[in-house]
């Protein structure tokens, strides 16, 4: 349950850089932080240890009155996104303290959580790479159909988890084992090797592993 320390960020896109040894590496550029701590939760006050962090400044008209009062305690302005990170021990951070990308270093391994690109309602061929049926040779009306979904009397039902057509993407995905190629505190930017879930400008959570 307890998570490692992390930071919220925005996926900016991908590019290719040359690593220290000269090898070309595909990287995802993530603009992360600074994330102010908007609430510190401890066992005494809330029954568990956690940090609540925020990202992206928001205008007053976009934030409800109760949330405005909540943000006023930290005194760092209003924000669009909030996320709670549960911790094992009591948090060292203070209310209002800002988390920055400086907490990470190049060469570290992290996991990144984001909401995957939504692909809508998709058939089995696209969603699960099914082969489909023939286009010709007497094949009629079933070119992209699903085919058989199971047996008859035994077991008498379709097993759960059967791969079928349905909504694809737009779900929370965590990519683990991602290497940090570079950290640029002056731009609040982290370069992570490989791809991370979500569209450009999508909200991501980077956590230590």
């Amino acid at each position, binding site marked *: 349950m307890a998570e490692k320390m992390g930071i919220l960020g925005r996926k*900016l896109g991908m*590019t*290719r*850089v*040359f690593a220290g040894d*000269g090898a*070309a590496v595909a990287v995802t*550029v993530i603009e992360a932080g600074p994330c102010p701590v908007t609430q510190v939760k401890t066992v005494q006050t809330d029954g568990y240890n956690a940090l609540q962090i925020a990202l992206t400044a928001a205008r007053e008209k976009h934030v409800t009155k109760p949330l405005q009062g909540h943000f006023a305690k930290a005194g760092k302005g209003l924000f669009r996104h909030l996320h709670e990170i549960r911790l094992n021990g009591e948090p060292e951070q203070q209310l209002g303290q800002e988390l920055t990308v400086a907490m990470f270093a190049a060469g570290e391994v992290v996991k990144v959580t984001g909401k995957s690109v939504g692909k809508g309602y998709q058939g089995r061929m696209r969603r699960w790479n099914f082969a489909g049926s023939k286009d010709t040779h007497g094949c009629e009306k079933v070119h992209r159909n699903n085919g058989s979904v199971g047996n008859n009397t035994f077991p008498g039902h379709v097993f759960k988890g059967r791969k079928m057509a349905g909504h694809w993407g737009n779900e929370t995905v965590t990519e683990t084992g991602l290497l940090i190629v570079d950290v640029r505190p002056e*731009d609040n930017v982290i370069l992570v090797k490989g791809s991370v879930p979500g569209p450009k400008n999508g909200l991501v959570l980077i956590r230590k592993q």
Partner: protein
Amino acid sequence: MDIIRKIEQENMRMDMPAFRSGDTVKVHLRIVEGEKERIQVFQGNVIRIKRGTTNATFTVRKVSDGVGVERIFPLNSPFIDHVELVTQGRVRRSRLYYLRALKGKAARIKPRGRF
């Protein structure tokens, strides 16, 4: 987007000579063997330049002992020590794949003259 452009800008090298398809170039490569580093030269015709930022590449073709050899180099790779422009060639297209089918005298490229 600007941050990405900035990162790419830092990863690009500005010391490359302006060569084109059809030119003959000497690519001086840094080869690391264990501890030692040495320079290897690959000379041939540029038959393709794939433009871009950090992922730009160029292909150099040479005929070595009657066997055509093509190498694709990342234009901004730190493994390239430097590129020397030997001669400029006059060609009418940017992708010189037709050279692969030609041999000997037919595979020559005319030098680019000044008008």
